[in-house]
């Protein structure tokens, strides 16, 4: 980061639970006011990373700073961060109001400031009028809002969210995605959220950190992560993709294992083994013989057609490899199984990823 002071700065942090390395030497800087997602499959260390920022787990090695202040070993009550827990962790024996007040009371904040800040927070998450209810009298979405208000009322410098939408059904989840984004813009603080849902990460965050097996594989904007994955894992984990084995021929060409030479920018040295990631929606299907002026293409035969309503997915066999082609917004199906076709794509659609 070029920012003078990052909101969260993680340097060489490792977390071991006995023999198991949950987080393996990661470096990460999250900017002030950023909406940042930690994305990865379960067990990749993303939640442990979040818990270390919150102070619920302590790093085995490394340094962790929040706005320049070293907090790696500080207990959670000494950090300017608050957490929205996965299943909300609302206190069942307290009302909504008592839940929201809890953090303020623990810090000795008294009326009238207490009352005013609670009112602000309940208003912000549209919970006014529900203050005297208990958590089990609320719907999942409302519980989520209480958890948000309970954290935000403390005016943390960083809000941590652990799979905040995981417990909601699809429709509510999409609604809450928009609401969370709006809320983050409103309060203007850094949001760090953990999710295993790549669509959620792409839709919500300004930057994404992809994790796997305790390591941070790539950090970038959703577009960078999707279009220029840094590794085979990232390419495969984010969205659907075709992975073609290849070796580097020159700085602008790679040779696929089936012999075809295609255009693709790469900084990997000549002769290295690489993989080429081709997004199904970035490739076209053409009748055999109509080669495009620029870009690359592969000849093949349509094997299978899957109708998805808003899109049609063709499975094309090109020699030993199978390529998925996704066509959207086309009327009818111009190709049938068994047709000889050419799969073509523009220069730049193919991304070379290291192994």
């Amino acid at each position, binding site marked *: 980061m070029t920012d003078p002071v990052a909101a969260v700065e993680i340097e060489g942090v490792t977390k071991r639970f006995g023999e198991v390395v949950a987080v393996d030497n990661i470096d990460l800087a999250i900017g002030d006011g950023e909406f940042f997602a930690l994305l990865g499959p379960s067990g990749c260390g993303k939640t442990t990373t979040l818990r270390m920022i919150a102070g619920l787990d302590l790093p085995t090695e490394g340094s962790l700073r929040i706005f320049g202040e070293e907090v790696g070993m500080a207990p959670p009550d000494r950090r300017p961060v608050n957490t929205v*827990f996965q299943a909300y962790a609302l206190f069942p024996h307290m009302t909504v109001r008592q839940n929201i007040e*809890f953090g303020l009371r*623990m810090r000795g904040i008294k009326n009238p400031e207490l009352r005013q800040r609670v009112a602000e927070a309940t208003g912000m998450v549209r919970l006014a009028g529900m203050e005297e209810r208990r958590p089990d009298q609320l719907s999942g979405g409302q519980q989520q809002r209480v958890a948000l208000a309970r954290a935000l009322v403390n005016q943390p410098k960083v809000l941590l969210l652990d799979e905040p939408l995981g417990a909601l059904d699809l429709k509510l989840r999409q609604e809450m995605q928009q609401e969370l984004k709006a809320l983050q813009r409103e309060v203007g603080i850094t949001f760090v959220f953990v999710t295993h849902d790549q669509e959620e990460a792409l839709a919500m965050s300004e930057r994404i950190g992809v994790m796997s097996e305790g390591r941070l594989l790539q950090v970038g904007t959703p577009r960078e992560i999707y279009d220029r994955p840094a590794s085979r894992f990232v390419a495969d984990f984010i969205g659907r993709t075709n992975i073609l084995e290849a070796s580097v021929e020159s700085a602008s060409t790679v040779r696929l294992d089936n012999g075809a030479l295609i255009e693709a920018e790469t900084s990997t040295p000549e002769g290295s083994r690489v993989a080429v990631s081709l997004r199904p929606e970035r490739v076209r299907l053409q009748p055999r013989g109509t080669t495009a002026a620029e870009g690359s293409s592969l000849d093949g035969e349509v094997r299978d057609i899957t109708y998805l309503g808003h899109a049609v997915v063709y499975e094309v066999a090109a020699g030993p490899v199978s390529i998925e082609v996704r066509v959207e917004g086309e009327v009818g199906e111009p190709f049938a199984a068994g047709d000889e076709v050419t799969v073509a794509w523009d220069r730049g659609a193919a991304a070379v990823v290291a192994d």
Partner: protein
Amino acid sequence: MSGVVEVGLGRRTRRGLAVWAWVVFAFLYVPIAVLVFFSFNASARVNIWGGFSLGWYGEALRNDVITSAIRVSLIVALISTVVSMVLGTAVALALDRYRFRGRRALDGTVYLPIVIPDITMAVMLLVFFAEAFKLIDSFGPRLTLGISTVALSHIAFNISFVCVVVRARLDQFDRTLEEAARDLYATGWQTFRRITLPLIMPGVAAGGLLALTLSLDDVVISAFVTGPGSTTLPVYVFSSIRRGVTPELNAISTLMLTASIALVLGSLALQRRRASASQQTQIL
């Protein structure tokens, strides 16, 4: 229940079972009814009805030995309940949360007082007190069996019962609630005081109620470790029965019965209130 579909039972079988149920019922409750009935007997002869009278209740409550025994029982029950609630909850928390040297051994042995026969426990405690007194007396004081040894013994078995009940409650406890409290600036103690304790309180209270009942009820262990002037009510009843049943004993027993029924009804009412509260929340 009338709504249940009965399968494969003939009418005669059903009638037979109903009769049998009444026999069992009578077996359980007729002795109690007899006891209560004769406690109101005006006659001094236990098994001959001489008209209704509350005289034996008055007689019992005027008897200094009996009122003293009642007092001892209540003091012992109260002290042992409070102490075992605190210690039993502490043990349950330690076993649930911490990994320490000897944890597994403690985990296995903490329940022993529940399964050990009362008589073994009684002999064991008596021997323990005798040895301990010998040791302490060598430094000067002359300790004897009395109300404190009875209370200590009751604490010794009550801890186990409280511990079992509280651990069952802790099993369902969601630890992220404590993390949430820590995240919201609560210190370790505040977290325990505001979150953990209120949420396991039903278990602690249930354990305490159990301890209270067991303490008020105990004969064998108390009889062994009691000393002069510190006889508990059950021990008094047991020792006087050897001199024959008197209507006075009937009256005392009825009083004890009433007290324990009141305790059970109280705890049931408590549970029902909690249950209906949570039912209400489900409807909403």
